[in-house]
């Protein structure tokens, strides 16, 4: 049962010599063998007997480079890729005495998706209802933590890819401020939006993990040279007088009524804990999804140009002409969503369309950022739903890309503005699916987020609920 505990509980047990890292690894390993054939959170089925851990284990999304350990972004085009180096976050974890679990976590190919259905390894299933998606793109990370197949995990968030699966699977997921965590060794999707962040069983684990992975890195020139506080200091439970804004644009028609009711109750809980809650306006919210699908695809089309079969991954054999080799390798190696996004991004950047699409999107991005700046000049944080509905069925949205894109309607503007946000469990629907509460704050105010999230979490029992598997 060691696998059911949080990282901070296990670290305490290790400290007191009440358990060993081998016992923890064994418990985790047998849990994975018991449930992962149904959940499929990891990219490969576990091979018994290969686990030899030197510290408390953490599980890692398949797009974060781990030296010598397959990192394939769940794409056929990166099949067999073993990075020759560790991402900075992996280096930091290893120096903190944390062990990297030797099997990566499933995701949508190159993080393109909201359901973990677009993976070359097949879909991950939601531990709360195996017919539902776990969310995405860090669906493997969220499902593994929810199913106690991982103690804690790292994911990445470009438009909601940590928070939306955290909400769907009933775990805690944080997207840090852009620049708070080094992106070195994170295989790039959209470089102005991507951040690595923790998926954990509770808020304390999230703060502990942020203490380890945050900070400036000379290998990522976009990482911020701002001191890292001890985030656990914010976990005191007092939110009296905290100024909380509720954006009226987020509670719109089309939002699932049950989700709305559960989020409203959570907001009332914050009030009863002493927060000062008031309505606020983010008038340009309606533009977030269209802006994102221009900027993110434009950056992706450029970042994914490197996958051409020259240096790593798939190369279509027997082609004599270089350009033809690129076209056929990429035609065969990329999945449908990757192709769609590369084409859309290339279109938005192409001659004749650049001003009408890309440049316009960058300008509207400024409007979205200004909306947040204005609210945060008066408020400490913003609370909102993480997603408009609970987890949907596998296959329900995979044929209609646009309806899939709209499941990120509440998470995307956070990435466009570069601010931090957390999702934490705030209830279950009648059919037994988790709902997430999102808390947003201004850049580098992760402490405010942890303070509010911890106070809420400790006054409820939602984070203690486990799916029956």
């Amino acid at each position, binding site marked *: 049962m060691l696998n059911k505990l949080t990282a901070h509980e296990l670290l305490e047990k290790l400290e007191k010599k009440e358990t060993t890292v081998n016992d923890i690894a064994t418990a985790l390993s047998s849990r994975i063998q018991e449930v992962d054939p149904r959940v499929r959170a990891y990219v490969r089925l576990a091979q018994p007997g290969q686990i030899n851990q030197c510290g408390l284990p953490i599980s890692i999304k398949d797009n974060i480079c781990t030296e010598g350990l397959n990192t394939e972004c769940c794409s056929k085009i990166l099949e067999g890729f073993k990075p020759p180096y560790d991402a900075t976050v992996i280096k930091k974890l290893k120096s903190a005495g944390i062990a990297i679990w030797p099997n990566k976590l499933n995701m949508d190919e190159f993080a393109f998706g909201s359901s973990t259905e677009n993976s070359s390894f097949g879909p991950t299933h939601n531990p709360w209802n195996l017919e539902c998606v776990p969310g995405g793109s860090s669906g493997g990370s969220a499902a593994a933590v929810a199913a106690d197949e991982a103690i804690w995990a790292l994911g990445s968030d470009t438009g909601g890819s940590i928070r939306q699966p955290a909400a769907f699977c009933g775990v805690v997921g944080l997207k840090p401020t852009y620049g708070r965590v080094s992106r070195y060794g994170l295989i790039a999707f959209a470089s102005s939006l991507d951040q690595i962040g923790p998926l954990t069983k509770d808020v304390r684990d999230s703060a502990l993990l942020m203490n380890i992975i945050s900070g400036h890195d000379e290998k990522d020139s976009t990482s911020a040279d701002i001191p890292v506080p001890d985030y656990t200091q914010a976990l005191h439970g007092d939110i009296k007088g905290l100024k909380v804004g509720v954006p009226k644009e987020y509670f719109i028609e089309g939002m699932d009524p049950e989700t709305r009711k559960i989020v409203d109750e959570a907001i009332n809980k914050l009030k009863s804990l002493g927060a000062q809650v008031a309505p606020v306006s983010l008038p340009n919210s309606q*533009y977030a999804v269209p802006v994102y699908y221009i900027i993110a695809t434009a950056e992706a089309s450029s970042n994914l140009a490197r996958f051409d*079969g020259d240096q*790593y991954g798939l190369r279509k054999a027997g082609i004599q002409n270089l350009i033809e080799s690129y076209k056929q390798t990429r035609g065969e190696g990329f999945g449908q969503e990757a192709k769609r996004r590369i084409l859309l991004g290339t279109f938005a950047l192409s001659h004749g369309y650049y001003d009408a699409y890309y440049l316009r999107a960058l300008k509207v991005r400024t409007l979205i950022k200004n909306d947040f700046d204005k609210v945060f000049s008066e408020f400490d944080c913003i609370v909102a739903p993480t997603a408009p509905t609970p987890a949907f069925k596998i296959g329900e949205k995979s044929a209609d890309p646009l309806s899939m894109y709209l499941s990120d309607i509440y998470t995307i503007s956070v990435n466009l503005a570069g601010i931090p946000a957390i999702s934490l469990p705030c209830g279950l629907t009648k059919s037994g699916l988790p709902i997430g509460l999102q808390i947003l704050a201004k850049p580098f105010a992760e402490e405010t987020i942890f303070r509010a999230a911890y106070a809420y979490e400790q006054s409820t029992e939602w984070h203690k609920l486990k799916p029956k598997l």
Partner: protein
Amino acid sequence: MAISRETIEYVANLSRIQLSEEELKKISGQLAAILDFIDKLKNADIGNVSPTSHILPLNNILREDSPKESLPAVQALANAPQKKNDFYAVPKVIE
């Protein structure tokens, strides 16, 4: 907005992606629907707004140009689909 077959073929060529006939038809329809949705941005008032390409106020981050340890060639080439001596080998570039 409708998106012509020529445009998709042009963009696919720029992207160096070979599409099957079936993919080309399917993706054309999907991109048209996505672009219709994106056209919503025409309603935004961007008169005097400057573009945001990057969220942090960072410019020209430079470092000393000094030698450091780097990956040995064997390791750097370990993932290469094809190699020759200490180089990547690719299909012929020059006719």
